[in-house]
C-alpha cells in the first residue's frame, strides 16, 4: 500500500510518500496563491526521488483552505436558508447567532416552514409542501445557487429534509443543496449553522477540489484522491466537494495523527511547533482528543468534531524581544528565510537563538555566533516556561506522560519538561501533518435515540449503523474499531430512551474493492 500525503498549509505545502506504513521520502515547498502549482511542485520534488517514483494507491490531501475562507470572509456565496420545524423555534431564525458581517455575506434569503419531527420520530407537523414549492420558485427567481435545509430532529428522521430536496431539485435545479442531517448531531441551531456554512462554500469546494485533481493529473499520478476531515479520517474527493466544512480542522488533526504514527504512540501529548504558533494537543487511542465545548468557526457556533488544541504564539519565527527577554507572540512568519539573522536578515528570532545554542544547524551559524549567552539562556527559558505551562494545562492525566515534538520548530522544545516522562523526536517530524494525511483512516458515525432496548443492545445497534456508514465511505470492514462511544439517557422521556453516539474508524479499503459512493 503506497500513499502520498499532502498538507496544504498557509506557509508550506508538504508532501510525503508512505509505503507499507513507512515514510519513504518527504519534501517541503512554499504554498502558492493558486494552490495548484505549489502542490504540483511538491509532487514533482517528491517524485524526483527514485524511491518515490512508484505507483501509488491513493493521494490524501489535508488543507486549511475552507476554514480560512470562513475566517477571512473570502470566496463565500449567498445561501437560501430553509428551516423546517415551524411553528416551533420561530423566534430564533437561521443566522440568528452569526456575526453580522458574515451573515450579511451568506444570507441570501430565509424561509421558515411547517414540518419536522419529535424526539420519538412522530412528525411534529405535516410538511408544508406548498410553502416549499413557493420557496423553490423564489430561489430560482433570485438566482441563488446554494441552499441549506434544516428540519427539527432530522438526525432521527431525515424524511422532511429529503422530501424538500426533491422539490428543490425539480423547481430550482441550479441550486446545490446541503441537508443538515448529513452534517450534524442533535442541536438544531448548531447543525443548521454547519449546513449554512457548507452551502456557502459550495463553489469554492468545487473549484478547489478540481484544482487538487488537476495538480495530481499534471504530475502524472493516477490514483484516487481523498481529503482529510476534522477527526483525522479521510473522505472521498466527491464527498469533500459536497461537504467542505468537514475538513475545517484537518491541518491540526493531521499533525497529531502524524505524530502518533511516527512515534508509534497512541496515548501521548503532542506539540507541533510551526513558524508562528505551537499547537498542543493530546492523543487518545491514536486520535486527537476532541474539544469539550461548542466550537466556533469564524464566530459561528457549530458542533464539529474538532481536536481540543491550545495554540500559543511560539514558533521558529517568533520575534525575540530583549528588554525584558521575551519570545513571541509576534513572528516573522513566512519571511523567516529572509528576515532571520541566520538567513542574512536583521530580525532576532527564536530560530537564531536555537542556532546559537547549537540546538539546530540551519542558515549561517556564524551570523548568530555573537549573541550573548545570557540572552540565549533567557530566551530559551522563556520559551520553555511558555511550553511548560500550556502543556500542563492540556494534560488530563496526573502522572508523567510522553510528549511528541513535531513541526519545523520542534528544536525549541527542551529535552526535559516537568510532568513529561520523555520528549520524543522523530524522523520526518517536520512533515508530520503530511504524514497524518497519508495514514488517515475512514470513519463512520451514528448519533441516535434508542428506546425499549437495553444499553448494550442500543450501543450494538448504533455500532452497526456507524460501521455500515464507514464501509460506505470506503473503509475495509474487518479493520473497523470503535474510536469513541457515548451513551446518554434522556431525562424526562419515557421508555428508557437512550441517546447513543458512536464513531468507528478503519483502514481505507484497497482501490480494487469497489466502494459505494
Amino acid at each position, binding site marked *: 500500500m503506497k500513499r502520498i500525503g499532502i498538507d496544504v498549509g498557509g506557509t508550506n505545502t508538504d508532501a510525503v510518500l508512505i509505503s507499507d506504513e513507512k515514510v519513504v521520502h518527504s519534501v517541503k515547498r512554499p504554498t502558492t496563491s493558486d494552490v495548484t502549482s505549489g502542490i504540483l511542485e511538491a509532487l514533482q520534488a517528491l517524485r524526483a526521488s527514485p524511491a518515490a517514483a512508484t505507483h501509488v494507491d491513493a493521494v490524501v490531501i489535508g488543507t486549511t483552505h475552507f476554514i480560512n475562507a470562513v475566517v477571512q470572509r473570502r470566496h463565500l456565496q449567498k445561501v437560501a436558508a430553509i428551516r423546517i420545524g415551524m411553528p416551533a423555534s420561530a423566534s430564533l431564525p437561521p443566522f440568528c447567532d452569526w456575526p453580522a458581517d458574515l451573515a450579511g455575506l451568506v444570507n441570501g434569503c430565509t424561509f421558515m416552514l411547517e414540518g419536522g419531527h419529535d424526539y420519538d420520530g412522530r412528525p411534529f407537523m405535516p410538511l408544508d409542501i406548498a410553502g416549499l414549492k413557493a420557496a423553490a420558485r423564489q430561489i430560482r427567481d433570485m438566482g441563488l445557487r446554494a441552499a441549506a435545509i434544516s428540519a427539527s430532529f432530522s438526525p432521527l428522521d431525515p424524511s422532511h429534509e429529503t422530501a424538500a430536496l426533491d422539490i428543490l431539485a425539480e423547481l430550482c435545479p441550479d441550486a446545490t443543496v446541503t441537508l443538515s442531517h448529513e452534517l450534524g448531531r442533535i442541536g438544531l441551531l448548531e447543525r443548521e449553522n454547519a449546513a449554512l456554512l457548507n452551502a456557502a462554500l459550495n463553489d469554492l469546494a468545487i473549484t478547489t477540489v478540481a484544482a487538487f485533481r488537476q495538480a495530481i493529473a499534471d504530475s502524472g499520478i493516477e490514483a484516487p484522491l481523498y481529503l482529510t476531515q476534522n477527526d483525522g479520517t479521510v473522505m472521498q474527493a466527491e464527498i469533500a466537494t459536497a461537504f467542505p466544512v468537514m475538513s475545517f480542522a484537518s491541518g491540526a488533526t493531521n499533525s497529531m495523527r502524524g505524530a502518533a504514527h511516527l512515534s508509534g504512540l497512541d496515548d501521548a501529548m503532542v506539540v507541533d511547533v510551526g513558524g508562528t504558533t505551537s499547537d498542543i494537543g493530546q492523543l487518545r487511542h491514536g486520535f486527537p482528543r476532541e474539544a469539550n465545548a461548542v466550537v466556533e468557526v469564524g464566530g459561528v457556533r457549530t458542533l464539529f468534531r474538532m481536536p481540543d488544541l491550545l495554540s500559543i504564539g511560539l514558533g521558529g519565527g517568533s520575534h525575540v524581544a530583549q528588554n525584558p527577554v521575551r519570545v513571541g507572540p509576534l513572528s516573522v512568519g513566512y519571511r523567516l528565510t529572509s528576515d532571520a539573522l541566520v538567513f542574512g536578515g536583521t530580525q532576532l528570532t527564536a530560530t537564531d537563538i536555537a542556532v546559537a545554542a547549537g540546538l539546530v544547524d540551519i542558515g549561517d551559524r556564524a551570523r548568530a555566533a555573537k549573541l550573548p549567552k545570557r540572552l540565549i539562556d533567557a530566551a530559551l527559558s522563556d520559551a520553555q516556561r511558555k511550553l511548560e505551562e500550556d502543556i500542563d494545562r492540556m494534560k*488530563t492525566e496526573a502522572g508523567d506522560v510522553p510528549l511528541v515534538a513535531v513541526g519545523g520548530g520542534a528544536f525549541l522544545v527542551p529535552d526535559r519538561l516537568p510532568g513529561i516522562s520523555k520528549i520524543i523526536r522523530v524522523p520526518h517530524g517536520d512533515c508530520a501533518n503530511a504524514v497524518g494525511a497519508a495514514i488517515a483512516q475512514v470513519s463512520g458515525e451514528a448519533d441516535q435515540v434508542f428506546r425499549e432496548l437495553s444499553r448494550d443492545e442500543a450501543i450494538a445497534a448504533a455500532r452497526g449503523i456507524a460501521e455500515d456508514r464507514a464501509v460506505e465511505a470506503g473503509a475495509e470492514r474487518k479493520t473497523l474499531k470503535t474510536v469513541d462511544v457515548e451513551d446518554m*439517557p434522556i431525562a424526562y422521556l419515557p421508555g428508557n430512551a437512550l441517546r447513543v453516539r458512536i464513531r468507528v474508524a478503519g483502514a481505507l479499503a484497497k482501490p480494487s474493492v469497489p466502494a459505494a459512493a
Partner: protein
Amino acid sequence: MNEASLHTISLDEIEALAVGAWILGTGGGGSPYLGLLNLRRLYAEGHDVQMMSPLDLADDDWVAVVSNMGAPLVGQERLADSRSIARAVRMQEEINDIAFRAVMSVEIGGGNGMQALMAAAHLGIPVVDADCMGRAFPEAQMTSVAIGDLRPYPCTLYDPRGIEAVVTKVPSWKWMERASRKICVEMGSIASTSKAPRTGREVKDWGIHFTTTKAIRIGRAVDAANRKHEDPIAALLAAEGGKKLFTGKIVDVARRTTEGFLRGSAIVEGSDADRGHRLKLSFQNEWIVAWRDREPIAMSPDLICVLDSVKGHGIGTETVRYGQRVTIVALPAPAVLTTPRGLEFVGPRAFGYDLDFRSLFSPAEAGA
C-alpha cells in the same frame, strides 16, 4: 417601599445572568444560551425588561410563576421561543380573570432563569427579583411555595402548535408534578408552563428573594476574572462565600433514566491538592450528593456546582464528559430549604439518600 423603584435590566446584565444561572443550575436546567439569544433579539427590537424588588409588591398583586418544562434534548431541537412562555402566562390571566403585576421564574438555575425575562419583555410587566428554589431542582414540589404549603393549582401548559392545557385542580404539589408531566410528555416532552399564580403577599413570605441579582452578580464576577486572566472560580467563591470542594478530572460518568429522571454518578480523580483522592457526584438531573473517598462531604440543598476549571462556567449532568477538567464548589442554600420542613422536600432523604443533612455553611453564611 418606593413603588417606582424599577431597574431596567441591561443586555450586559442578561449576558452575565446567563453565566450565573448556569452555575446556580447545579448541573440541571439546561444551558441558558437559547434564552440569551431570544433576549438579545428582543432587546435589538427595542424591548427591555424592568426588574422590581419582591418587597415592593402589594399584598394583593398577582405574580406569574413560569418555567419551561421538559427534556433538555428536546430543547435543542425545539428552540425556546419567548412568545410561548408569554402565552402560558396569558392563559392564566384568562382562566382566572386576573391581570399580573409581574412575573418570576420558578427556578433561577439554568435556562429557566431566563424564562421570566422573556415573558416580561412580551407582556410589558416587570420581573420580580426572586424565584422559588434559589437554584434548580428536578421536581415541581421541590419549591419554597410547596414548602410553604401554598395552593398548587392551576397550572397552564402551552405548545406552539396551538395546544393549550390546564391542570385545574390537584390535591398536592406531588400530584401536580405527576399530572403536568404526563401532558408535557404528550406535547413532545417540552412545554411552556405558568404555575399557580401567587399573590404579592405570598411572594414576600415564601419567595426566595434577590436571586436574579445574585445570578447576575455571579456571572459578572466570573466574566470579569476571565477578562483579566484571573481565576474565575476564586472570584466566584469570594463573591458568594462559597467553598471549593475538589479539583480534578472526570474519569467516569454513569447515567440511567429511571422514573423519568436522569440519575447516575460522575467520578472525579483529584489533581493538585486533591491528588490521590476521588470525588463521586451522585445526581438526579441536578448534583445531589458529593462523596470524597466514600464520605459524603456536600449534599442537597447546599448547592453543588461542577465548573469548567479554566473558564469557571457551569457543566450540566447531561453534558459532563470523560476527561473534563473540573472544579467542584459548594454555595450556601437559601435558608427556607434548610429548615426541617424544607429538608423534607429537598434534603438528601427526598432523593433517596439515608443521610442527615449536614451543611457546609453555618447559619450566618446561609443565603436569603
